């Protein structure tokens, strides 16, 4: 086993020498997670808005359900998607297993409850006068919704970042439905898991540093936007 210092030095070399294999993994990670969050967030915001503004039977159960679903382990989501898309599964004919599409679907399912729960809190905390003022000034519901989104944008950006943070670092779901195929579905977390088991620490450390930098950046942004998310009257 190579020494930790040698592995760390090698990891820096890999990162800054533009190692193609490493950067493909990084690109795959971001490509999949960015697409997943961009698809999930708009739907989640609409669901959260409806939950915050409409009164209907089962609303409280729905809110509690989304809150509870935040803690579903990634590997369970991965297992569910795997079973659905496996050859004998109900959507097996689509042949999506071990593709980017399956990884994106898994990450959408993983981030959706978190996005709904957090954005629901933002919508619920929004001033009721935003909607009423928009409507009384002649805005149609879609425009009033967009105005409301604009008014609570800092809270929603914080939600978006938290959702992205949840999926960029998850390993269980991507491993199961992506298959960790080199140069195709291997992303940062699955590559770290694999390289560590193989004893190839340099690449694992390099990828870990990318994830760590990402986590720090996301947390910094989260703190910034949560601070600005306080609504004034």
């Amino acid at each position, binding site marked *: 086993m190579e020494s930790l210092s040698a592995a760390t030095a090698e990891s820096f070399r890999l990162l800054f020498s533009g190692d193609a294999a490493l950067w493909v993994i990084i690109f795959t990670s971001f490509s999949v997670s960015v697409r997943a969050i961009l698809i999930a967030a708009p739907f989640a915001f609409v669901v959260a808005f409806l939950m915050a503004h409409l009164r209907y039977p089962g609303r409280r159960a729905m809110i509690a359900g989304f809150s509870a679903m935040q803690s579903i382990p990634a590997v369970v989501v991965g297992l569910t998607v795997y079973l659905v898309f496996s050859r004998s599964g109900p959507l097996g004919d689509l042949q999506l297993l071990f593709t980017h599409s399956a990884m994106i679907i898994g990450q959408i399912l993983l981030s959706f409850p978190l996005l709904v729960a957090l954005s629901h809190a933002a919508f619920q905390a929004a*001033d009721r*006068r*935003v909607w*009423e*003022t*928009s*409507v*009384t*000034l*002649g*805005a*149609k519901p879609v*425009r009033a919704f967009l*105005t409301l989104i*604009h*008014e609570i944008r800092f809270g929603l950006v914080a939600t978006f970042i938290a959702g992205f943070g949840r999926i960029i670092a998850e390993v269980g779901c991507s491993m199961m439905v992506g298959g960790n195929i080199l140069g195709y579905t291997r992303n940062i977390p699955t590559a770290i898991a694999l390289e560590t088991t193989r004893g190839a620490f340099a690449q694992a450390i390099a990828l870990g540093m990318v994830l760590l930098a990402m986590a720090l950046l996301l947390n910094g942004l989260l703190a910034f936007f949560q601070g600005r998310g306080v609504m*004034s*009257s």
Partner: protein
Amino acid sequence: MSTIIHYNALRKTVHDRLLLDIDTLEIQEQACVALSGRNGAGKSTLMRIMAGLEMPDSVTVTLDGKTLPWHRACQKMRSHVIYLHQQPYLFDRSVTDNIAYGLRRRKLSIREISRKVSEALDWAGIGHLQLRNARELSGGERQRVAFARARILSPRILLLDEPTTNMDSEARNQTYRMIRQLKEDGVSILLATHEFCTVAHLCDVHLSLESGHLRPQVIDTASAERKIIPYG
């Protein structure tokens, strides 16, 4: 004066309590109606129903002589009636953008919007604030922006929910002047207050909301005259 809108048999229950039980309420053209009542009497709820922002248990709405079902009346009311909250909400954008908000919804040309906004800024005396973020303004300035934003849409009825609450005397007098100007522009006004004497000089009709019922009150013209604020 002809009647713009007539609400008949308006009922509203809140938390199993009959909050509003109004047989008839009509707003006439160019009238200024004071709506008084203690806190919690249902003034704001009544105004929100009148603006189509809240649904009553039952009501019959007659607009310009035509009786309309509630959802149709709602759509119509929104183009004729503007409701201003007790503390108006200004969007997190510039004063100009706030004032132009309603005009943009009406799909006017940029030039037309710009001309009308400029006029509204002058009318409210807030031209110097046009580029400021509306959130940074004082209470009195916010109220002026809200009045300009409402007036620019040429509403037929303006519902003002205790517009001078928590204002100092200068801001209050400024608000009274704007209400008077709106009245002279031909806008009908319903003005909620829990102290009628403070707005008596502005109003033609006084309705008191007590236990869910509207009761017409006689305005003491002599005392109202004494409270007139100099115009201009």
